[in-house]
């Protein structure tokens, strides 16, 4: 596994930590840096490594949303906060939730570097930082894990109070040339040559064999998909699982369900290529929601149609058991009731922020929420992760209140970044989790809008910004 690294280290006589500590600038081409050191001269347009002091004034480039504009800008670092880490970015995934932050022009209250984390090499640490050291390769996670806040000590680090959802302020880390202070989105903006993130976002990766591009599939979407099926509602062996949406989250959930031993994994997505990939990664059945959708009248009411929804009925049919004999472990296979249905349902669709090239049946994203809830068997688990819905969600109150379907909502649903990301790295390394298949397009920082256009169009599974 690590023989190659050892050989190279022997050849170079130094580890990354040592190299950086010795003040040498190292080229960190995405995915390749781990395998070979490159010519130091290839570093010209990258921010130079400055490994001592407060780093104040250090220049680097990042995509900045300021006011209504968005462009790659040159920034000057503000003095490094004692809790923060300077990470030279290698790869940062373009998650759908940031579409508007990159492509849009809605006015920003604060100048911001979008991007929810990334992967890179630690170049400097603040005086109070203990978790990571200079030279470490780290995943800067979308979901922090401080280990000491109320959520973390109560077993819910997926809602660490330092997360974007925790209501914390985004502290400026740099300035534009005109002096405007700039913060990283959720304090861990990923679309810059440097990520200047608090320590609690950083998860060191003690493995050199997995390319950073593949690690970038974990910092946000992979963590979400795996969290649902591993942690908040762990999929059981031999169970039936339905996954709504085969973007990077859904595809991670599908792989996780396969790893947990589910026997039937039903993938649902309108995009043919995504269904193909879902099957390759573990889905046993692939359904296009359009095949089960009857829009009917213009103001189609999803809720009143819940029990007649053809996709819901199809899922119940697929999950019917081999016996209806109640005294022999069976359950009724009546597709009009929710006895039969998937044991676990993961919903990862959400509202369309931009019209995709292959749209689903409902741009608001409400339909899959309804279907996910309705299809879940009574006593089953429904995990919802999606966002970008613009309206209310309404269910018949008595069924919601009394229906016995356990609901686990939340972005990083059950994911413990410090515990689970290293696990996921091992799964990639051992070939059990295919991150490469999800990382379908890479772009340099200067082409970030192009990268995001493809994400918005859903013509690629995901884009990743890589730095060379």
């Amino acid at each position, binding site marked *: 596994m690590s023989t190659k690294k050892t050989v190279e280290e022997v050849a170079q006589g130094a580890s990354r930590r040592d190299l950086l500590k010795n003040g040498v600038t190292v080229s960190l081409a995405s995915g390749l840096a781990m395998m070979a050191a490159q010519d130091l001269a290839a570093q010209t347009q990258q921010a130079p490594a400055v490994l001592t002091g407060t780093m104040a004034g250090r220049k680097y480039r990042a995509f900045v949303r300021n006011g209504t504009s968005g462009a790659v800008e040159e920034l000057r670092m503000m003095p490094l906060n004692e809790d923060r880490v300077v990470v030279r970015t290698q790869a940062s995934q373009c998650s759908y939730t940031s579409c508007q932050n990159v492509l849009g022009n809605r006015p920003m209250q604060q100048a911001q570097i979008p991007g929810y984390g990334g992967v890179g090499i630690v170049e400097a640490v603040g005086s109070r930082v203990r978790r990571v050291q200079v030279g470490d390769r780290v995943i800067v996670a979308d979901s922090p894990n401080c280990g000491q806040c*109320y959520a973390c000590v109560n077993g819910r680090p997926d809602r660490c109070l330092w997360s974007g959802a925790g209501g914390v302020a985004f502290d400026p880390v740099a300035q534009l040339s005109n002096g405007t202070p700039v913060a990283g989105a959720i304090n861990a903006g990923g679309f810059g040559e440097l990520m200047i993130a608090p320590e609690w976002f950083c998860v060191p990766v003690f493995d050199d064999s997995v390319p950073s591009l593949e690690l970038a599939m974990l910092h946000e979407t992979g963590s979400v998909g795996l969290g649902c099926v591993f942690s908040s509602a762990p999929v059981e062996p031999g169970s039936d699982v339905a996954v709504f949406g085969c973007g990077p989250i859904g595809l991670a959930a599908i792989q996780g369900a396969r790893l947990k031993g589910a026997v039937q994994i039903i993938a649902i997505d309108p995009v043919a290529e995504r269904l193909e990939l879902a099957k390759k990664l573990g889905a046993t059945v692939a359904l296009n929601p359009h095949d089960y959708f009857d829009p009917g009248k213009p103001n189609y009411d999803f809720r009143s149609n819940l029990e007649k929804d053809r996709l819901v009925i199809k899922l119940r049919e697929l999950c019917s058991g081999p016996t209806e004999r109640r005294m022999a472990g069976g359950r009724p296979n009546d597709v009009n009731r929710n006895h039969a249905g998937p044991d676990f349902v993961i919903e990862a669709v959400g509202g369309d922020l931009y019209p995709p090239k292959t749209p689903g049946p409902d741009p608001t994203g409400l339909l899959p929420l309804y279907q996910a809830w309705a299809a879940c068997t009574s006593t089953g688990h429904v995990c919802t992760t999606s966002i970008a819905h613009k309206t209310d969600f309404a269910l018949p109150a008595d069924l919601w209140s009394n229906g016995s379907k356990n609901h686990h909502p939340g972005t990083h649903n059950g994911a413990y970044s410090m515990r689970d990301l290293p696990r996921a790295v091992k799964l990639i390394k051992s070939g059990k989790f295919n991150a490469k298949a999800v990382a379908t397009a890479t772009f340099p920082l200067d082409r970030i809008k192009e990268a995001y256009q493809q994400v918005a169009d859903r013509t690629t599974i995901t884009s990743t910004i890589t730095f060379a």
Partner: protein
Amino acid sequence: MSTTESGDMAEKGADSQNTDTISRRGMIGITAAVAGGVAALAGSKPAAAQAPQQAPAVLTGTQKGRRFRAFITFENTAKVSIMDSNSRVETVTMKELDADRIVVRTEAAQVCYTMLGRVAGPPGINAAGVLVPAQKKGDPVQILGHSAVGIVEAIGSAVKRVQVGDRVLLANTPQCGVCHNCLRGRPDRCLNVLSPTPVIGALADGTQVMQQHDRGGFSELVIPTEQYAIPMYYDVDPVQLSTLGCSGACGLGTTTGFEAPVAIGSDVVVLGCGPVGLSAVQGARIKGASQIIAVEPIAARRAVAQQVGATTVIDPNVDTAHLVEKIRDLCKGPNVQTWSGGVGTARGADFVIEAVGGDYYPPKVEAGPDPKGLISLRWAWDLCSPTGQLSTVSIDQHGDFSIPANQWSNGAKSHHPGNFNGVATLKDMQIYARLIERGQFNAKAIATATYPLDRSKEALQAVSDRTTVGAVIVFG
């Protein structure tokens, strides 16, 4: 524990038993006709004390032709008052006993608010939005009720769990142990609930009779399948035990059961202090919650909540607009330092139990802020901390639960809906009975009035009016 509870006694020959240690099982084995109800239990009442109108015990054969009295629900043409309802006590003649059924002489049966629609409702869409088909001539009628306590008088040939003479609790939810849900750790949703409900007898005019949810309870005899029957081994009187059949177990299950057990030192909010909510308050206290906030519009019920464990009681009709904010503030805790386990800002309760539901009739006492029962669901959601556990058990709401979709999808609040949420009846009912026996669960607080079978409508009226916390039909 009472020595008369020993199951072993039934194994012994009747001759070897003296009158002091005779078991119920033994008693019924010896005597052809035993006084019903509590009298049989005490073992001291002479047979002559038996109420003359009680069905006589017939302990052999198929039980066919045995007659007993029961409160039967008949269809009403429109929604009427409870007292004007067609529902009434009638005599039922048993058909032969099925192999997997038992005959239980009822001692006590709890009245539940959810029965009101059945008693006085018309066909059509009921309060819960479910279509109730019009009853056609010749359709079977139902015996009201969904739980009871009593003594087993006869068992079918395939029954193993109980024996003649056992006192049994007939719970609202069976536990067969072998259906899909029981095998997956969700006996609260045991699938051995038969639909349609089988016929167990007939009225004098030949109309066929079923039992509501296949148990009934407002009846001298209950004839359930054995999966509903839990033999009780603790020395608790039938009236108190009957509270466990439905609402008591529901409240205890949401707080102590396998779904969302309350953690020590936690903040708990209970919305609604009827029998379910008051049981949840007690369950939270038993589990060691530090703060138990009970929200209830009726002053008398708030007082009971305080007696049984609530640390704070709140009237939702006072300053309703700020209710959520106020309770969140109560739950914020002393520590706001995020680096030492603090919550940062007021974030809500660790556990929220919602037990309100929609009104079928307006209460005679203080009405809550929303007769539809929707606002309490929304409060329950809003009060739950972002990483908390939300249990909802209520029904009969009129309308939708509505919330911004983003919050529902992405809010990280674990939701455990369902009546009997977390209850494994066969295991937990013994534990709950023991809690009553040892004084840890105050069942008397939720069994506040008793009525004989002939006054069933008055019992239902009191429950509807909410002038009593919980009513129980008693026999004998």
